[in-house]
């Protein structure tokens, strides 16, 4: 399990290559990746985007979510890298990669990770002078992963 919070830019292509390169040949039948990037909402290509966070709690929450994914699905590897600080339109905010023997688990785990971190990990986005509001759709999406088991 590789979970990192960093200020440095994320190169999703290089990270994907790294995940494949470090895999045990023939072990995982399925690799699924997700890259979340900064969208250009209103033609504000030169606008500042800053992601602030709660150092300490951010890492703990991401690790807990990753451990939850590992206990729910058979994963051979899990990578979750989330950026903080200033970033520009088009840049990668978060990169997730999972590998599993079969694709159902890989797709589900990857989706679980991004859906869950969006409602639980203490990051806050600011565009220019305005804080972005949390949205109802994200909250609804994450509830589909709730189970009866704690």
């Amino acid at each position, binding site marked *: 399990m590789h979970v990192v919070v960093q200020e440095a830019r994320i190169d999703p292509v290089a990270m994907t290559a790294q995940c494949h390169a470090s895999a045990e040949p023939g072990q995982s039948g399925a690799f699924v990746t997700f890259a*979340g990037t900064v969208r250009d909402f209103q033609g504000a290509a030169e606008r500042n985007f800053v*992601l*602030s*966070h*709660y150092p*300490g*709690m951010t890492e*703990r929450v991401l690790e807990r979510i990753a451990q939850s994914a590992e206990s729910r699905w058979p994963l051979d590897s899990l990578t979750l890298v*989330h950026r903080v600080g200033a970033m520009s339109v088009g840049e990668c*905010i*978060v990169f997730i990669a999972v590998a599993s023997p079969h694709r159902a688990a890989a797709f589900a785990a990857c989706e679980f990770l*991004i859906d869950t*971190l*969006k*409602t*639980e*990990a*203490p*990051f*806050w*986005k*600011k565009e220019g002078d305005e*804080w*972005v*509001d*949390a949205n109802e759709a*994200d909250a609804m999406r994450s509830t589909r992963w709730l189970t009866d088991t704690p």
Partner: protein
Amino acid sequence: MRIELLYFASLADKLGCDRESLDWQGGTVADLKALLSTRGADTWAPLINANSTRCAINQQLAQDDSEIPSGAEVAFFPPVTGG
């Protein structure tokens, strides 16, 4: 005993504060919110007590009835917007 309070994002901006140290006689999150609310009926009270305001004790999400131990780090923050 003392506790450390942290405020984040839009909540910190609106309160005009991002961290402080407080003398604490013991109690729950609800007790702390009541104490902070006395700082302003139009400012601190509605912001701290808002349904959307989250609280964490020692970096774990907490509820109104959670006990705040001595030396704890207590954080208040708005709904998260990462990913």
